[in-house]
């Protein structure tokens, strides 16, 4: 991380130790609670949830960085540092996956040889679903993401400093290839970490759903970060109603795409009604889980969608913050709804689920803030036109 060159004028910050300390204490507490009180299986399961919540934001940030390098647009001028910093949390999140290697059998039934021995389907899947390959794939994903994240952070500063045309073309080509790699790796990461929780079940759009969940979460996080800083010196003159409107419109677009891929899966599985596929939804539509399912429909799709139809809502920072917060919460609920029914027929939330998510969050935020301070928050080259757009709107 130290090779990240601070941009001129930005104060290279030391990481603040406090969030790391809090995070470490909470996680150690959770581990103690897990191993001595609630059983290690619960610890590992909750760990997966908490870890995935924050890792997903990092992955989404990486995807949005790639998207902006390819398409451009003012939305990226105020958010690119946020997404770049989020994507640079991925190396640490990769390291934080290591504890799960020791608990795979209590999370994934395919990792338990006894269960595989009595299950023809799992035997068929063994070339893909086996512990060494799973670990190898996860390591590979994080290597690819880390490499891309650091290259992107360098490239965006190069472009801002006026790289020559040929150089920019090379960077764009790199971004395009990275995008292809990202879509494929995140698809398979989603399949590995989440879809194989119920190893008999399959859905070819599952990767698409996971990609959109991560992108949406990172986008909501980006909006919250921008809004939090909108009164600061760096942001005061460059953000305003037109920029909020851009951010809000894209939030709405991502909500729509998220809902679209969800609907594709639900409608096709519901309509065909084949037992091997319907079970996944059946597990999540009884024992109280159905209320969570309905809440996804209402709060993850309908409420954000309907409120953001209004231009006023999209460009009003207060409303935008509410909607973005709602998305961040529902992103958690959605992960719970995908993960926890694997083991619990009726609705359950372990205190460890919350505790580990919070502890992991403290670590992640600490890391994010440290990374975020490493380059100018708004690219200087973009400032004049951002200001102009704000002034023009008045």
């Amino acid at each position, binding site marked *: 991380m130290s090779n990240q060159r601070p941009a001129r004028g930005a104060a290279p910050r030391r990481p603040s130790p406090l969030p790391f300390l809090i995070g470490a204490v909470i996680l150690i507490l959770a581990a103690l609670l897990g191993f001595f009180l609630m059983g290690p299986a619960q610890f590992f399961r909750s760990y997966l949830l908490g870890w995935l919540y924050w890792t997903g934001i990092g992955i989404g940030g990486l995807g949005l960085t790639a998207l902006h390098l390819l398409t*451009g*647009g003012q939305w990226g001028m105020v958010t690119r540092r946020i997404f770049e910093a989020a994507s640079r949390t991925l190396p640490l999140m990769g390291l934080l996956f290591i504890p799960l290697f020791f608990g795979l059998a209590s999370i994934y039934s395919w990792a338990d040889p006894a269960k595989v021995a009595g299950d023809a389907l799992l035997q068929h899947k063994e070339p893909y679903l086996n512990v060494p390959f799973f670990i190898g794939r996860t390591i590979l994903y994080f290597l690819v993401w880390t490499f891309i994240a650091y290259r992107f952070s360098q490239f965006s500063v190069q472009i801002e400093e006026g790289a020559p*045309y040929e150089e920019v*073309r090379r960077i764009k080509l790199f971004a*395009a290839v990275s995008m292809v790699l990202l879509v494929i790796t995140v698809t398979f990461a989603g399949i590995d970490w989440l879809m194989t929780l119920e190893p008999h079940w399959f859905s070819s759009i599952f990767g698409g759903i996971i990609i959109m969940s991560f992108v949406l979460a990172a986008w909501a996080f980006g909006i919250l970060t921008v809004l939090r800083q909108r009164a600061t010196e760096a942001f005061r003159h460059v953000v305003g109603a037109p920029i909020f409107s851009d951010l809000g419109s894209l939030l709405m677009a991502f909500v729509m795409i998220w809902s679209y891929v969800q609907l594709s899966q639900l*409608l*096709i599985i519901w309509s065909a009604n084949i037992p*091997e596929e319907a079970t996944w939804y059946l597990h999540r539509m009884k024992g109280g889980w159905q209320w969570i399912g309905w809440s996804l429909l209402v709060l993850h799709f309908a409420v954000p969608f309907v409120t953001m139809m209004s231009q006023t809502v999209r460009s009003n920072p207060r409303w935008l913050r509410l909607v973005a917060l709602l998305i961040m919460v529902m992103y958690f609920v959605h992960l719970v709804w995908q993960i926890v029914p694997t083991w619990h027929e009726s609705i359950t939330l372990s205190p460890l689920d919350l505790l580990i998510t919070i502890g992991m969050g403290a670590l992640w935020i600490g890391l994010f803030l440290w990374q975020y301070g490493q380059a100018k928050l708004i690219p200087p080259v973009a400032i004049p036109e951002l200001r*102009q757009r704000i002034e023009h709107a008045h």
Partner: protein
Amino acid sequence: MLSSPQHEATQPKTAGQVPVLAPGHNMRSITDKISDIVLKPKGGIGWVIGFAITFALTMQLLFSIGWLLLRGIGVWGNNQPASWAFDIINFVWWIGIGHAGTLISAILLLLRQQWRTSINRMAEAITLFAVANAGLYPLLHTGRPWLDYWLFPYPNTMGLWPQFRSPLVWDVFAISTYLTISLLFWYMGLLPDLATLRDRATGKIKRMAYGIFSLGWRNSARHWKTYEQAYFLLAALSTPLVISVHTIVSFDFAVSVIPGWHTTVFPPYFVAGALYAGFAMVLMVAIPVRKIFNIEDFITMRHIRNMSIIMLVSGLVVAYGYLTEGFAAWYSANPFEIDTVLLLRFVTGPYRVLAWLLIACNVVIPQLLWSSRVRSNTVLIWLISGVISVGMWLERFVIIVMSLTNDFLPSSWAMYAPTVTDIAMYTGTIGFFLFLLLLFIRFVPMISAFEMRELLHKVSHSGDHHSSSNDSQHGGEVVPVPGD
């Protein structure tokens, strides 16, 4: 909104990029050039020959439809188990081709992408003509098309309602709405230009005809205000519609339990496939047209390149669809899925050559578009677009025919081959499509003249950042249109 020209300074510098409008044009030269194609056609012999050929093909289409009505569906190659064949393949193929037009004219409008301006009208026309061809097939496939109104839910003495859970019924709603909105969008966008033609036409009949179709457009500020609102609204309506149409087409297959049809990635992958085929068709039309009519100033290499990039991206999404579909089939451990999607399709099945050809056309060859040298060679792009059009047709053949002819039970396996009527009708629709396109080019300005003038205004004023306000622009545009 998401990116506009004056903000491009902050994007990666694209020095040497071709402009969306070649320099040296003024309001008058734009209007002259576009309206002269219609009002003072030159070198009509080529057009006449093209018209004759496509007219003959249109007659062939009508003849094959007549034959079908006379003899019944049996004149097609459809059989049991391949009860869906050429008719549905061509339906999906044509409707997909239509999608690029809506993407260019509506979605790029909402995204404020100015480069859409010179190609939107032609693309919309392609949409309309493609959807018209597409609509023919399912209507004729019902067997008794004179009873097709039964597809609509209306209170009737038989007490019968369509099956609302069937995507085939949703198709009726989606496609008829899509066709209506696309037609309105296209026609409304034409009004100001039809008025220009009315004012410039020399013959009395021409003036009257354009006068009637321009619905009394007088370039008044009020007209423009209403126009802008309505145009934006129609764009906002078309956007979900275009997604819904191909999504529902994909549901036609995916909600069933047929291996090779039933997979959850179908909706986005079909939409991407539609855009893929659609952009291929727009490029196949635009590249020769800009050459023949000498409008390379308006449809510049920038347009060709941008469209190639969208085509490449949608092609990659399609390839992603193939990848996840194949993986899910293997991962499902369901022997029927594995057999149909992987083994029969690529290794042992009777149509495996077509499946490999499809991979070559849709996945391998289009990767050439990664090279910017290829993206600046119109001949190569035209050829690649042709390859993609073939590939997308093959995709539908592979999905539809291969899954149906290799059902769960070997006893219901059979081969399928199209008949002469099938082929006559398919080539007939291609002829009809080109026939309509020729009429369109001859009688209607194929590039939106007033939007080009607006673009000129924006390009020449981009220094003073006024491009976002619309009200001041049209006043200036009214003037250069001579009233004769």
